[in-house]
């Protein structure tokens, strides 16, 4: 019994140590859409298919301007939390990444995985395809008030 307890205690200790260790980055080249992570994962604006692309473009800019973390959604559904962009770590300054919201980007950089979350330090943007996910055709705009009356009445 004592050996079993010792082994289990050791396993727990190893797990705690691993959880506290710094992650090791890996070079990565990846293509994905720049999205707002809060709306995508929280469901606050609806399902994930509706809160990407052109339907959600204005909201994504609002969230990025508000300092909500931006993500990179790859075709297989993996989302990387973007924490550096071309050397800049100040991504919550209200301006960074506004120009690429909803764009599909090919980038290279360093990827990290920590406690189940994927992070990416984008070093170079290799290609910017612009907005190619035309979700407004299926969902309109999300949220519905994204386009103000003043624009609609023009």
């Amino acid at each position, binding site marked *: 019994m004592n050996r079993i307890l010792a082994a289990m205690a050791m396993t727990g200790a190893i797990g705690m140590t691993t959880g506290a260790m710094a992650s090791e980055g890996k070079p990565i080249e990846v293509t994905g859409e720049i999205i707002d992570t809060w709306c995508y994962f929280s469901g606050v604006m609806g399902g994930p298919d509706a809160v990407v692309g052109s339907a959600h473009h204005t909201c994504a800019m609002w969230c990025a301007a508000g300092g909500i*973390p931006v993500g990179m959604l790859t075709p297989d559904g993996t989302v990387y939390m973007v924490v550096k962009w071309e050397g800049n770590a100040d991504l919550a300054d209200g301006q960074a990444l506004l120009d690429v919201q909803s764009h599909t980007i090919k980038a290279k950089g360093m990827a990290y995985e920590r406690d189940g979350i994927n992070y990416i330090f984008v070093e170079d943007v290799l290609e910017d395809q612009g907005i190619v996910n035309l979700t407004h055709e299926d969902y309109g705009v999300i949220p519905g008030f994204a386009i103000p009356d003043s624009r609609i009445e023009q």
Partner: protein
Amino acid sequence: MRAPLVVLATLIAAPALAGDYSEGSNANSWGLTGEEKATFTATVTDAVCALTSDCPADCGAGERVMVLVRESDGMVIPATKNLQTGFQGPTWDLAPYCGQTVQVDGLMVGDDPKLGGRLYQVQMIKPDGGDWTKANGFTRPWEARNPDATGKGPWFRRDPHVRARLEDTGYLGLGQEADDVFIAEEY
């Protein structure tokens, strides 16, 4: 023999207990996907610091993506939203506590299997020896950074950087002509 069995049972139950941080939480429900109230003690830092050795003393003073390193298990948790309704992140709420141990109260969010972890909405922050404060600190720093963005309406309608992009590429991001077509068809 009884004592070792109790210890064994405790060790077996520990992982399940470790995942429940709802006890003592006074967080407000937002009805979000995978929502779970959670209050815990954590060290405040920024994501770049947590992943590498790039650790400015002020965690970027509100301009870096912030994380919470939970004291009980060392888990790094992305802090994604603050208490305010209306597109505000928590960086300006958390940065003043950079490097400090605080207690937070809020919501763990998300159940996407592709997301192996979960995100956190910070609603309240309590520094060591201090009082609970609401995580609603976005607006004043935004006003300080944008002194000319006055007028009616919420901040996100007045934000000059967003407005410039909207004037350039429209609400769909596809140009003003695409907006014209969409508005004509939908409104």
